[in-house]
Protein backbone atom coordinates (compact mmCIF):
# COMPACT_ATOMS: atom_id res chain seq x y z
CA UNK A 1 0.00 0.00 0.00
CA UNK A 2 1.71 3.12 -1.17
CA UNK A 3 0.71 6.09 0.98
CA UNK A 4 1.46 9.78 0.68
CA UNK A 5 -0.24 12.14 3.09
CA UNK A 6 -3.05 9.69 3.79
CA UNK A 7 -3.22 9.92 7.58
CA UNK A 8 -6.97 10.40 7.35
CA UNK A 9 -7.74 7.22 5.48
CA UNK A 10 -4.83 4.81 5.81
CA UNK A 11 -5.90 3.33 9.15
CA UNK A 12 -9.37 2.44 7.91
CA UNK A 13 -7.94 0.79 4.81
CA UNK A 14 -5.41 -1.21 6.83
CA UNK A 15 -8.14 -2.35 9.23
CA UNK A 16 -10.36 -3.36 6.36
CA UNK A 17 -7.62 -5.31 4.62
CA UNK A 18 -6.71 -7.18 7.81
CA UNK A 19 -10.35 -7.86 8.48
CA UNK A 20 -11.41 -9.04 5.03
CA UNK A 21 -8.20 -10.85 4.17
CA UNK A 22 -7.08 -12.73 7.27
CA UNK A 23 -3.53 -14.00 7.22
CA UNK A 24 -2.04 -11.52 4.82
CA UNK A 25 0.97 -9.35 5.49
CA UNK A 26 0.25 -5.67 5.09
CA UNK A 27 3.08 -3.35 4.17
CA UNK A 28 2.37 0.35 4.00
CA UNK A 29 5.05 2.31 2.20
CA UNK A 30 5.00 5.86 3.47
CA UNK A 31 6.34 7.85 0.56
CA UNK A 32 8.00 10.58 2.59
CA UNK A 33 4.81 12.03 4.05
CA UNK A 34 5.15 14.94 6.43
CA UNK A 35 1.98 14.03 8.28
CA UNK A 36 1.30 11.17 10.66
CA UNK A 37 0.77 8.54 7.96
CA UNK A 38 3.52 6.29 9.32
CA UNK A 39 2.37 6.40 12.93
CA UNK A 40 -1.29 5.95 12.03
CA UNK A 41 -0.62 3.01 9.73
CA UNK A 42 1.63 1.36 12.30
CA UNK A 43 -0.97 1.80 15.02
CA UNK A 44 -3.51 0.19 12.70
CA UNK A 45 -1.40 -2.93 12.61
CA UNK A 46 0.48 -2.65 9.34
CA UNK A 47 4.18 -2.96 8.79
CA UNK A 48 5.40 0.41 7.63
CA UNK A 49 8.43 1.26 5.57
CA UNK A 50 9.08 4.98 5.60
CA UNK A 51 10.95 6.54 2.73
CA UNK A 52 13.24 9.42 3.74
CA UNK A 53 11.80 11.62 1.00
CA UNK A 54 9.07 11.45 -1.60
CA UNK A 55 9.87 9.18 -4.54
CA UNK A 56 6.45 8.97 -6.11
CA UNK A 57 4.20 5.93 -6.34
CA UNK A 58 6.66 4.11 -8.57
CA UNK A 59 9.43 4.26 -5.98
CA UNK A 60 7.08 3.26 -3.19
CA UNK A 61 5.86 0.28 -5.17
CA UNK A 62 9.32 -0.86 -6.13
CA UNK A 63 10.19 -0.80 -2.45
CA UNK A 64 7.15 -2.96 -1.79
CA UNK A 65 8.24 -5.49 -4.39
CA UNK A 66 11.77 -5.53 -3.02
CA UNK A 67 10.39 -6.14 0.45
CA UNK A 68 8.25 -8.99 -0.86
CA UNK A 69 11.21 -10.56 -2.61
CA UNK A 70 13.48 -10.24 0.42
CA UNK A 71 10.90 -11.68 2.78
CA UNK A 72 9.72 -14.63 0.75
CA UNK A 73 6.36 -13.31 -0.37
CA UNK A 74 5.58 -14.49 -3.88
CA UNK A 75 2.40 -12.54 -4.46
CA UNK A 76 1.88 -8.81 -4.11
CA UNK A 77 -1.40 -6.95 -4.27
CA UNK A 78 -1.31 -3.19 -4.50
CA UNK A 79 -4.10 -1.43 -2.65
CA UNK A 80 -4.32 2.35 -2.58
CA UNK A 81 -4.36 3.97 0.84
CA UNK A 82 -7.16 6.37 0.03
CA UNK A 83 -9.87 3.77 0.36
CA UNK A 84 -10.68 3.64 -3.36
CA UNK A 85 -9.94 -0.04 -3.64
CA UNK A 86 -12.21 -2.51 -1.94
CA UNK A 87 -10.17 -5.32 -0.38
CA UNK A 88 -13.09 -7.69 -0.98
CA UNK A 89 -11.98 -7.69 -4.60
CA UNK A 90 -8.57 -9.15 -3.78
CA UNK A 91 -9.57 -12.85 -3.86
CA UNK A 92 -10.96 -12.35 -7.36
CA UNK A 93 -7.60 -10.92 -8.43
CA UNK A 94 -5.68 -13.73 -6.76
CA UNK A 95 -7.84 -16.36 -8.44
CA UNK A 96 -6.49 -15.26 -11.81
CA UNK A 97 -2.87 -15.42 -10.72
CA UNK A 98 -2.72 -19.17 -11.33
CA UNK A 99 -2.83 -18.57 -15.05
CA UNK A 100 -1.44 -15.03 -15.33
CA UNK A 101 1.45 -13.00 -13.94
CA UNK A 102 -0.30 -9.67 -13.52
CA UNK A 103 -3.98 -9.16 -12.75
CA UNK A 104 -5.57 -5.73 -12.93
CA UNK A 105 -8.64 -4.70 -11.04
CA UNK A 106 -10.53 -2.81 -13.74
CA UNK A 107 -13.13 -0.17 -13.10
CA UNK A 108 -15.02 -0.07 -16.37
CA UNK A 109 -15.51 -3.75 -16.88
CA UNK A 110 -19.11 -3.57 -15.84
CA UNK A 111 -18.99 -3.46 -12.09
CA UNK A 112 -19.36 -0.60 -9.63
CA UNK A 113 -20.39 2.95 -10.25
CA UNK A 114 -17.08 4.61 -10.84
CA UNK A 115 -17.25 7.08 -13.70
CA UNK A 116 -14.93 9.65 -15.19
CA UNK A 117 -15.75 12.38 -17.66
CA UNK A 118 -14.14 14.45 -20.36
CA UNK A 119 -10.53 14.32 -21.49
CA UNK A 120 -9.46 11.98 -18.75
CA UNK A 121 -11.94 9.30 -19.73
CA UNK A 122 -10.93 9.73 -23.35
CA UNK A 123 -7.25 9.48 -22.45
CA UNK A 124 -7.90 6.31 -20.49
CA UNK A 125 -9.64 4.78 -23.50
CA UNK A 126 -6.75 5.57 -25.82
CA UNK A 127 -4.20 4.20 -23.38
CA UNK A 128 -6.28 1.12 -22.82
CA UNK A 129 -6.49 0.30 -26.52
CA UNK A 130 -2.73 0.73 -27.03
CA UNK A 131 -1.92 -1.41 -24.04
CA UNK A 132 -4.44 -4.06 -24.96
CA UNK A 133 -2.55 -4.55 -28.19
CA UNK A 134 0.76 -4.85 -26.36
CA UNK A 135 -0.54 -7.25 -23.76
CA UNK A 136 -2.51 -9.32 -26.31
CA UNK A 137 -5.58 -9.19 -24.13
CA UNK A 138 -8.46 -6.81 -23.65
CA UNK A 139 -7.73 -4.22 -20.99
CA UNK A 140 -10.22 -1.51 -20.27
CA UNK A 141 -8.74 0.30 -17.31
CA UNK A 142 -4.99 0.61 -17.50
CA UNK A 143 -4.61 3.40 -14.98
CA UNK A 144 -5.96 1.31 -12.16
CA UNK A 145 -3.54 0.97 -9.29
CA UNK A 146 -5.40 -2.04 -7.99
CA UNK A 147 -3.37 -4.97 -9.17
CA UNK A 148 -2.00 -8.31 -8.14
CA UNK A 149 1.43 -9.57 -9.18
CA UNK A 150 2.56 -13.17 -9.20
CA UNK A 151 6.09 -14.42 -8.48
CA UNK A 152 7.51 -13.66 -11.91
CA UNK A 153 6.05 -10.17 -11.86
CA UNK A 154 7.34 -9.54 -8.33
CA UNK A 155 10.86 -10.48 -9.39
CA UNK A 156 10.64 -8.26 -12.43
CA UNK A 157 9.10 -5.27 -10.67
CA UNK A 158 11.52 -5.38 -7.75
CA UNK A 159 14.20 -4.46 -10.25
CA UNK A 160 12.38 -2.61 -12.99
CA UNK A 161 9.53 -0.65 -11.64
CA UNK A 162 9.02 2.62 -13.45
CA UNK A 163 10.03 5.51 -11.25
CA UNK A 164 8.26 8.24 -13.18
CA UNK A 165 5.03 9.32 -11.61
CA UNK A 166 2.11 7.57 -13.35
CA UNK A 167 4.52 5.20 -14.93
CA UNK A 168 3.52 3.20 -11.94
CA UNK A 169 0.43 1.92 -13.70
CA UNK A 170 0.86 2.28 -17.43
CA UNK A 171 4.57 1.82 -17.86
CA UNK A 172 4.57 -1.11 -15.48
CA UNK A 173 2.17 -2.91 -17.77
CA UNK A 174 4.35 -2.25 -20.80
CA UNK A 175 7.39 -3.53 -18.93
CA UNK A 176 5.52 -6.64 -17.87
CA UNK A 177 4.17 -7.26 -21.37
CA UNK A 178 7.55 -6.76 -23.01
CA UNK A 179 9.19 -9.04 -20.47
CA UNK A 180 6.82 -11.74 -21.68
CA UNK A 181 4.52 -11.84 -18.65
CA UNK A 182 0.84 -12.49 -19.18
CA UNK A 183 -1.62 -9.85 -18.08
CA UNK A 184 -5.34 -10.04 -17.51
CA UNK A 185 -8.03 -8.03 -15.79
CA UNK A 186 -11.00 -8.70 -13.60
CA UNK A 187 -13.87 -6.30 -13.01
CA UNK A 188 -13.88 -4.69 -9.57
CA UNK A 189 -16.04 -2.09 -7.91
CA UNK A 190 -14.26 1.07 -6.85
CA UNK A 191 -15.36 3.55 -4.27
CA UNK A 192 -14.86 7.26 -4.11
CA UNK A 193 -11.96 8.30 -1.89
CA UNK A 194 -12.78 7.99 1.76
CA UNK A 195 -10.65 11.01 2.61
CA UNK A 196 -8.08 13.32 1.11
CA UNK A 197 -8.20 15.29 -2.11
CA UNK A 198 -8.40 13.62 -5.51
CA UNK A 199 -5.67 14.86 -7.80
CA UNK A 200 -7.70 15.57 -10.91
CA UNK A 201 -8.62 18.64 -12.87
CA UNK A 202 -8.50 19.58 -16.52
CA UNK A 203 -4.94 20.93 -16.66
CA UNK A 204 -3.66 18.04 -14.59
CA UNK A 205 -5.40 15.56 -16.86
CA UNK A 206 -3.71 17.11 -19.87
CA UNK A 207 -0.30 17.01 -18.24
CA UNK A 208 -1.02 13.49 -17.09
CA UNK A 209 -1.83 12.40 -20.61
CA UNK A 210 1.29 14.04 -22.04
CA UNK A 211 3.51 12.39 -19.47
CA UNK A 212 1.76 9.09 -19.99
CA UNK A 213 2.44 9.38 -23.70
CA UNK A 214 6.13 10.13 -23.19
CA UNK A 215 6.54 7.36 -20.63
CA UNK A 216 4.75 4.99 -22.96
CA UNK A 217 6.90 5.81 -25.99
CA UNK A 218 10.10 5.30 -24.05
CA UNK A 219 8.85 2.11 -22.45
CA UNK A 220 8.28 0.79 -25.97
CA UNK A 221 11.58 1.84 -27.51
CA UNK A 222 13.79 0.70 -24.67
CA UNK A 223 15.90 -2.31 -25.58
CA UNK A 224 14.42 -5.58 -24.38
CA UNK A 225 17.62 -6.33 -22.52
CA UNK A 226 16.78 -3.50 -20.13
CA UNK A 227 14.10 -5.69 -18.58
CA UNK A 228 16.20 -8.72 -17.84
CA UNK A 229 15.80 -10.13 -14.37
CA UNK A 230 18.75 -11.56 -12.52
CA UNK A 231 18.07 -14.78 -10.69
CA UNK A 232 15.18 -17.04 -11.47
CA UNK A 233 12.13 -17.29 -9.27
CA UNK A 234 10.39 -20.62 -8.97
CA UNK A 235 8.62 -20.65 -5.63
CA UNK A 236 4.87 -20.19 -5.62
CA UNK A 237 2.13 -20.52 -3.07
CA UNK A 238 2.53 -17.96 -0.31
CA UNK A 239 0.20 -15.04 -0.35
CA UNK A 240 0.80 -11.44 0.56
Amino acid at each position, binding site marked *: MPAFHEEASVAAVVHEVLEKLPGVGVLV*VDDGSTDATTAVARAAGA*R*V*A*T*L*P*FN*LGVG*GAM*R*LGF*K*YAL*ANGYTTVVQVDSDGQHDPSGVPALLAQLDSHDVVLGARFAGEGDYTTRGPRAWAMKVLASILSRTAHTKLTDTTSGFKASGPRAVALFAEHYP*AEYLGDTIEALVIAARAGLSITQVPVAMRPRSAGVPSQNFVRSAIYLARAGVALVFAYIRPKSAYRVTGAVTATGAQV
Partner: protein
Amino acid sequence: MSVASYVLGIVSAALILIVVIEMLRRHRLRERHAIWWVVAGVLALVIGIFPSTLDWAAGVLGIQVPTNLVFFVGIAILFLVALQSSAELTKLESKTRTLAEQVALLELRIRELETPPKD
Protein backbone atom coordinates in the same frame (compact mmCIF):
# COMPACT_ATOMS: atom_id res chain seq x y z
CA MET B 1 42.41 44.57 -33.85
CA SER B 2 43.39 46.96 -31.12
CA VAL B 3 45.80 46.13 -28.34
CA ALA B 4 43.02 46.51 -25.79
CA SER B 5 40.78 43.84 -27.31
CA TYR B 6 43.80 41.57 -27.85
CA VAL B 7 44.65 41.84 -24.15
CA LEU B 8 41.00 41.41 -23.17
CA GLY B 9 40.83 38.12 -25.07
CA ILE B 10 43.95 36.74 -23.42
CA VAL B 11 42.98 37.90 -19.95
CA SER B 12 39.50 36.38 -20.07
CA ALA B 13 40.83 33.07 -21.41
CA ALA B 14 43.49 33.00 -18.70
CA LEU B 15 40.85 33.81 -16.12
CA ILE B 16 38.73 30.81 -17.17
CA LEU B 17 41.72 28.51 -16.88
CA ILE B 18 42.78 29.92 -13.53
CA VAL B 19 39.30 29.52 -12.07
CA VAL B 20 38.94 25.94 -13.35
CA ILE B 21 42.36 24.90 -12.12
CA GLU B 22 41.78 26.55 -8.76
CA MET B 23 38.47 24.71 -8.37
CA LEU B 24 40.16 21.46 -9.27
CA ARG B 25 42.88 22.15 -6.75
CA ARG B 26 40.32 22.71 -4.01
CA HIS B 27 38.26 19.65 -4.96
CA ARG B 28 35.31 21.80 -5.88
CA LEU B 29 35.25 20.16 -9.29
CA ARG B 30 35.98 16.60 -10.28
CA GLU B 31 38.46 15.94 -13.09
CA ARG B 32 35.91 14.27 -15.33
CA HIS B 33 33.68 17.32 -15.22
CA ALA B 34 36.54 19.77 -15.58
CA ILE B 35 37.88 18.35 -18.81
CA TRP B 36 35.51 20.31 -21.04
CA TRP B 37 36.12 23.54 -19.22
CA VAL B 38 39.87 23.06 -19.52
CA VAL B 39 39.51 22.34 -23.23
CA ALA B 40 37.43 25.48 -23.68
CA GLY B 41 39.92 27.58 -21.69
CA VAL B 42 42.93 26.32 -23.62
CA LEU B 43 41.20 26.91 -26.94
CA ALA B 44 40.27 30.43 -25.91
CA LEU B 45 43.81 31.13 -24.76
CA VAL B 46 45.38 29.86 -27.99
CA ILE B 47 43.03 31.95 -30.07
CA GLY B 48 43.57 34.93 -27.78
CA ILE B 49 47.34 34.80 -28.19
CA PHE B 50 47.43 33.82 -31.87
CA PRO B 51 44.32 35.21 -33.58
CA SER B 52 45.70 33.99 -36.91
CA THR B 53 44.99 30.39 -35.88
CA LEU B 54 41.28 31.23 -35.85
CA ASP B 55 41.45 32.66 -39.36
CA TRP B 56 43.35 29.60 -40.51
CA ALA B 57 40.88 27.16 -38.91
CA ALA B 58 37.91 29.03 -40.36
CA GLY B 59 39.57 28.95 -43.76
CA VAL B 60 40.16 25.19 -43.55
CA LEU B 61 36.50 24.58 -42.66
CA GLY B 62 35.30 27.04 -45.28
CA ILE B 63 33.64 29.35 -42.79
CA GLN B 64 33.37 32.92 -44.09
CA VAL B 65 33.33 34.80 -40.81
CA PRO B 66 35.91 33.47 -38.29
CA THR B 67 33.84 34.75 -35.37
CA ASN B 68 31.10 32.29 -36.32
CA LEU B 69 33.55 29.46 -35.74
CA VAL B 70 34.10 30.79 -32.24
CA PHE B 71 30.37 30.81 -31.59
CA PHE B 72 29.93 27.37 -33.07
CA VAL B 73 32.68 25.79 -31.01
CA GLY B 74 31.55 27.64 -27.89
CA ILE B 75 27.97 26.47 -28.24
CA ALA B 76 29.07 22.94 -29.05
CA ILE B 77 31.18 22.75 -25.90
CA LEU B 78 28.39 24.18 -23.73
CA PHE B 79 25.96 21.70 -25.26
CA LEU B 80 28.22 18.75 -24.52
CA VAL B 81 28.81 19.91 -20.96
CA ALA B 82 25.09 20.33 -20.34
CA LEU B 83 24.38 16.92 -21.80
CA GLN B 84 27.07 15.31 -19.67
CA SER B 85 25.64 17.00 -16.58
CA SER B 86 22.15 15.74 -17.39
CA ALA B 87 23.42 12.21 -17.80
CA GLU B 88 25.27 12.41 -14.50
CA LEU B 89 22.18 13.82 -12.83
CA THR B 90 20.07 10.94 -14.11
CA LYS B 91 22.54 8.44 -12.77
CA LEU B 92 22.68 10.21 -9.41
CA GLU B 93 18.91 10.35 -9.16
CA SER B 94 18.53 6.64 -9.70
CA LYS B 95 21.27 5.93 -7.18
CA THR B 96 19.61 8.20 -4.62
CA ARG B 97 16.31 6.47 -5.26
CA THR B 98 17.83 3.06 -4.68
CA LEU B 99 19.50 4.33 -1.51
CA ALA B 100 16.23 5.71 -0.19
CA GLU B 101 14.51 2.40 -0.82
CA GLN B 102 17.31 0.50 0.90
CA VAL B 103 17.25 2.85 3.89
CA ALA B 104 13.52 2.39 4.31
CA LEU B 105 13.84 -1.39 4.05
CA LEU B 106 16.70 -1.47 6.55
CA GLU B 107 14.81 0.75 8.96
CA LEU B 108 11.81 -1.55 8.81
CA ARG B 109 14.02 -4.57 9.34
CA ILE B 110 15.75 -3.04 12.32
CA ARG B 111 12.41 -2.10 13.83
CA GLU B 112 11.15 -5.64 13.42
CA LEU B 113 14.31 -7.11 14.91
CA GLU B 114 14.09 -4.80 17.90
CA THR B 115 10.44 -5.41 18.69
CA PRO B 116 9.69 -8.93 19.93
CA PRO B 117 6.92 -10.61 17.91
CA LYS B 118 3.51 -10.49 19.51
CA ASP B 119 1.97 -13.54 17.86
